[in-house]
C-alpha cells in the first residue's frame, strides 16, 4: 500500500506543515500589532542549534529540537525587549536586520557551522521509526523511503496540529483579548491597565519559539541546511502566507501557507514564469481582497447559515 504514495506529494505536504508553523510565527506578533520579519533568523537559529546538537554532540533528535526551541526563545526575549521601543516599519526592518546578521554569523563561524556549505547528513526525524519498522520486518528496502517520508509527515502533522490547536484555544483567553486590545489601540490598552510590554514580549518570544521549532524540524526533514536556506525570502514568504490567508484569524495563516505552498508547485507548467504569475497573484489579491481570504466574518456567516 505504501508504494502507491508518491514521495514528491508527501514532501510537499511536509513543507506545507513547516510553512504553516512559519506563518504562525508571523501571525502571533501581528496579533499584537507588531510586524516581525525575524522569522527566517529564528528558523535558522533553531535549525543550526538542533543540527549541531545532533551531529556534533550526538544528542537524541527530540531532545535537540527542544533545546533549539528553548535557546531560540531566550534569544527572542533578548531581541524582543529592546525592539519594543520600535514601531511599525522600524520594527520590521530591525528584525529583518537581525535575520541577516544571524545568517552572516552562520557563514562566518565556519568551525561550528560549516560556513557557506552548511551542515549535511543531518539524521531525519523518521530515523528511529524506520529502524524499528525494519527490525520488525514490517517494511523492507523497497518501501523504506516512502515509509520514512510518511513518518516525517506524520510527526510534523502532529506538532503543527498542536500549535494550531493551541492558538485556536487561546482565542477566548485573557491573553488573546489583551493582544487584540493592544493591536487596536496601544495607548488605550495601557490606560486600562494592560501590561503592553509583557504581552508584546510574550508574543515575540512565542513567535521565536515556533519559528525555531519549524527550523529544527526543517533541518531533520531535508537533512541538509546552509545559510542560503534562511534568507530574506524565507521571512517575506511567511509574511505573504499570513497576510494573504487572512492576518485576522489563526486559520488564515494555516490556509495561506497551505495554498501558497501548493500554488508554485501547481504552476510548474509555466516554467520560468511561474513566479511571475505568483507575484501577479499577490498584486491582484491586495487590490481586491487586502484583508486576506479567511476573516472573522466568514465564520460569522457560516454560523448564521
Amino acid at each position: 500500500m505504501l508504494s502507491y504514495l508518491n514521495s514528491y506529494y508527501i514532501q510537499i505536504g511536509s513543507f506545507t506543515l513547516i510553512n504553516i508553523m512559519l506563518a504562525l510565527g508571523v501571525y502571533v506578533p501581528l496579533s499584537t500589532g507588531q510586524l516581525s520579519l525575524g522569522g527566517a533568523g529564528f528558523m535558522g537559529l533553531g535549525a543550526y542549534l538542533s543540527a549541531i546538537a545532533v551531529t556534533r554532540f550526538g544528542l537524541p533528535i527530540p531532545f535537540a529540537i527542544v533545546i533549539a526551541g528553548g535557546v531560540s526563545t531566550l534569544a527572542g526575549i533578548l531581541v524582543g525587549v529592546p525592539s519594543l521601543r520600535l514601531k511599525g516599519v522600524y520594527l520590521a526592518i530591525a528584525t529583518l536586520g537581525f535575520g541577516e546578521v544571524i545568517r552572516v554569523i552562520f557563514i562566518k563561524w565556519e568551525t561550528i557551522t560549516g560556513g557557506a556549505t552548511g551542515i549535511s547528513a543531518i539524521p531525519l526525524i523518521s530515523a528511529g521509526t524506520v529502524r524499528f519498522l525494519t527490525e520488525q520486518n514490517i517494511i523492507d528496502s523497497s518501501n523504506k523511503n516512502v515509509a520514512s517520508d510518511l513518518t516525517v509527515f506524520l510527526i510534523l502533522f502532529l506538532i503543527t496540529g498542536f500549535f494550531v490547536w493551541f492558538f485556536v484555544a487561546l482565542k477566548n483567553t485573557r491573553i488573546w483579548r489583551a493582544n487584540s486590545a493592544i493591536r487596536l489601540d496601544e495607548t488605550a490598552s495601557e490606560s486600562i491597565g494592560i501590561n503592553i510590554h509583557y504581552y508584546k514580549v510574550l508574543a515575540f518570544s512565542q513567535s521565536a519559539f515556533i519559528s525555531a521549532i519549524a527550523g529544527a524540524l526543517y533541518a531533520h526533514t531535508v537533512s541538509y541546511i546552509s545559510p542560503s536556506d534562511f534568507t530574506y525570502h524565507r521571512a517575506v514568504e511567511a509574511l505573504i502566507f499570513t497576510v494573504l490567508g487572512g492576518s485576522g484569524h489563526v486559520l488564515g495563516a494555516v490556509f495561506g501557507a497551505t495554498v501558497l505552498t501548493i500554488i508554485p508547485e501547481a504552476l510548474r507548467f509555466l516554467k520560468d514564469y511561474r513566479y511571475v504569475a505568483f507575484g501577479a497573484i499577490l498584486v491582484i489579491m491586495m487590490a481586491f481582497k487586502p484583508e486576506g481570504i479567511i476573516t472573522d466574518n466568514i465564520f460569522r456567516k457560516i454560523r448564521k447559515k
Partner: protein
Amino acid sequence: MHLFIEQLINGITLGSIYSLTALGLTLIFGVLDILNMAHGAVFMFGAFTAVLIVSKLGLPLWVGFLGGCIVSGLLGYALEMFALRPLRRRKNTSPLAPLISTIGVSIILENIARALFGSDTISFRTSISDINFKLGEIDINLINLVILAVSFTITILLYFWLKNSKSGRALRAVSENPDTAAFLGVNTSKVITFTVVSASCAGGAAGVLVAMAFNSVNNEIGLAMGLKGLAIIILGGMGSVNGAVAGGILLGLAETFVVAYGDSGYKEIIGFIIIMAVLLIKPQGIFGTTQKVKV
C-alpha cells in the same frame, strides 16, 4: 595616509550612490507612508538597460544612462498604476497591503529579469573604466569622479526642486498631510504618480552608477540594494531627505572601511549592525523626528 584618503574617496563615491537610491525610497515613504519593496528591482532594471544599450548596441554611456533612467521611470509608472493606486481606492486598508503588493511587483520584476538577462554576471566596461591619474601620492579613478559628480548633481537638483519649486512644495504638502493638501487644491493623485516615477528614475540612475562602479551587473544587486536602502532610510529617519543623504554616505564609508581594515564578509550586514545600534539609542533614526501621538 594616501591609502586612507583613497578609501575615503571610494567610500564617499559608494555612499553617494546609496544616497541616491535611498532618496527614492524616502520620497515614496514620505508621500505614501509605504515601504517600496520593489525599489531594488527597479534599480536593477535601470542597471541592466544601461549595460545592454552600451555593450550590445555600442551606444555612448550617456545614452545608456538616460535609457536606464527612462526604463526605471516607466516601471515606476506601472508600479503606481497597477500595484499602488488600486489600493488607495479603499478606505482603511491595512498598512500591510501595499507592502505585500510591492513585494509582489519585486517578485515579478526579479523573475522577468532572470528570464531576460539570465543569472550570470554581465561585465560592463565603459570608455572611462580604466583611466586613472595621480594627485600627489593619491591614485584617483576617473570613473569615481564621474559617479560622484553625477550622483551629487542629481541629489542637489532633487533637493532644490523639493525646496523651491511649486511641484516640490506640493509634494512636501502631500507628505505632511494628504487630506489638507487636497483641500488646499493640490492634485494629490498627480503628485503621488509624479513622486513614484521620479523616485524610480533616481533608483534607475543609481543602478547605472553601481554598474559603472563595479564594472558589472547581475540579478542579485537589486535585492542587496533594496535591503541596504531600507537600512539607510531607517538610519536617517523615515521620510527625511537629509537623513537619506547622510545615511547613504555613512553606509558607503562604513562598508568601504570594513572591507579595507576589517573582514569583507561583514560588508553586507554592517548597515544592519549600525541601525540596530542607532535604533537602540534613538528609535526615530538620526534625522527623524518624534511624532507626538494625541490621545
